[in-house]
C-alpha cells in the first residue's frame, strides 16, 4: 500500500464480496494482557496463515500487524485480550478486543510522518476498521487478502 494510506475506519464490507467466497473458519484465542503472550498470538496467527499456503512474507505481515497492536499497552482495555482469526477463502481477517478504541482511533487517524500504527498497518494489511458486536464491544478488524502462491 502506498505511503499516506488512510485506513478505512468504517465497519462492514471492507473488501468485495467475491473476496469472501467460501466457508468462514474462526479461531479465537484469549490471552492475558501481558507482553510475554504476544509471541503466543504470533504463533497462532502464523499457524492459521500457514493453512492458507501464505508466502512467508504475507505470514510475517500478519504477525507484525497483531504484534503492533498487542505490544502497545495503552491500546488494551482489560486484563485479557482476545484475538480472532477468521479465514474465508483467500481472505484473512484478524479481530482484536477489548481495546481502548479512543487511543487506537487517534493513532490510526494521526496524519503525521511518524512510523506509528497507521503507517505500519497500512504497509502490512489491506484494510483496517472496527466491527461492532451485539454486546456493544467494538473489535478492531484487520483484513488481508492473500494471493494464491504461483506454482504451489
Amino acid at each position, binding site marked *: *500500500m502506498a505511503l499516506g494510506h488512510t485506513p478505512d475506519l468504517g465497519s462492514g464490507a471492507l473488501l468485495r464480496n467475491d473476496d469472501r467466497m467460501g466457508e468462514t473458519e474462526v479461531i479465537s484465542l484469549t490471552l492475558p494482557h501481558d507482553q510475554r503472550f504476544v*509471541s503466543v498470538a*504470533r504463533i497462532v496467527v502464523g*499457524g492459521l496463515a*500457514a493453512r492458507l*499456503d501464505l508466502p*512467508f*512474507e504475507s505470514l510475517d505481515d500478519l504477525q507484525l500487524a497483531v504484534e503492533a497492536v498487542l505490544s502497545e499497552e495503552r491500546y488494551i482495555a482489560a486484563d485479557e485480550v482476545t484475538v480472532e482469526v477468521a479465514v474465508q477463502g483467500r481472505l484473512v481477517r484478524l479481530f482484536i478486543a477489548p481495546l481502548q478504541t479512543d487511543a487506537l482511533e487517534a493513532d490510526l487517524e494521526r496524519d503525521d510522518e511518524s512510523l506509528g500504527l497507521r503507517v505500519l498497518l497500512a504497509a502490512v494489511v489491506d484494510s483496517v476498521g472496527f466491527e461492532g458486536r451485539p454486546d456493544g464491544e467494538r473489535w478492531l478488524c484487520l483484513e488481508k487478502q492473500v494471493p494464491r*502462491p*504461483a506454482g504451489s
Partner: protein
Amino acid sequence: MASLDEASTRELLREYHERGDLDARARLIEAGLPLVRALARRYAGRTEQLEDLVQVGAIGLIKAIDRFELERGVALSTYAIPTIIGELKRHFRDKGWAVHVPRRLKELSLQLTQHVEELSGKLGRSPTVAELARAANADEEEVVEALDIGQAYSTLSLSEVPGDGEELDPLVSIGELETGYETSEDRALLLPGFRSLEERERRILHLRFFGGLTQSQIAEEIGISQMHVSRLIRRALEKMREEIEHHEPAQ
C-alpha cells in the same frame, strides 16, 4: 569512555591499578555504562530484556577495567568493547538457546534461513510454510514455531557484514553521528524512536514502510537475506517502542 576524556580515563586507571583506588574504579565503571548499554541494545530482543543484558555487559566492562594494561597505550574503550561483546556473546551461547529453545527447533530455525533463501531464488517469491516444511523435512507446525523462535533470537553479530560489504566496526558506529537521513527531507526519520536506530535499521524501515518495498526487494537492495530483513524490521520496531516509552513515559 563516554563522559571522561582520554587523559582523565588514564589517570583513573593509573589510580586504580597503581594505588588500588576503588573510587577510581567505580568512576570508570560508571563512565563506561553508556557504552555497555549501547552494545547491549544491539542484542536485546523479546526474550532478553535490555537491563538484563546491560548487567551481563557490565561484567565485561569490569573485566576490561581490571585487566587493562596501562603500558599498552591503547584507549580503554578499544579494549573494553570486544570484552563486553565477548561477555554478551558468551551469555547467549551458554544460556540463550540452551535454556529457552529445544535443540531440534533451534536447528530447524537455522536451517529455515537457508531454505527461505534457496526457495525464494528457485520460486521467484517467498516460500510458503508448506514448502519450507517439505524442504526441511519437518511438520508445518514446527516450521511456524521455528520461524517465531528465529525472530526471538535476532541477535545481530557485531562482526557480521553489513549491506555495504564492509565490516561493521563498533568503534566507528557507536556514538558517531550518522549522516544521510539526518539531511534527508524525510523528517520522519528524525522523530523519537528512529533516532535510536542504527543506520541500516533506519534504511530498512524507510524502505519497507515509506518506500513500499517488500522484504524480498529490501533484501536484494541491502544485500542480506529476506529472513534477516524480517528480523531486523521486528527488532528495529521493538527498539523504537522501547525508546519512545523511555523518553515519553507520560504519553
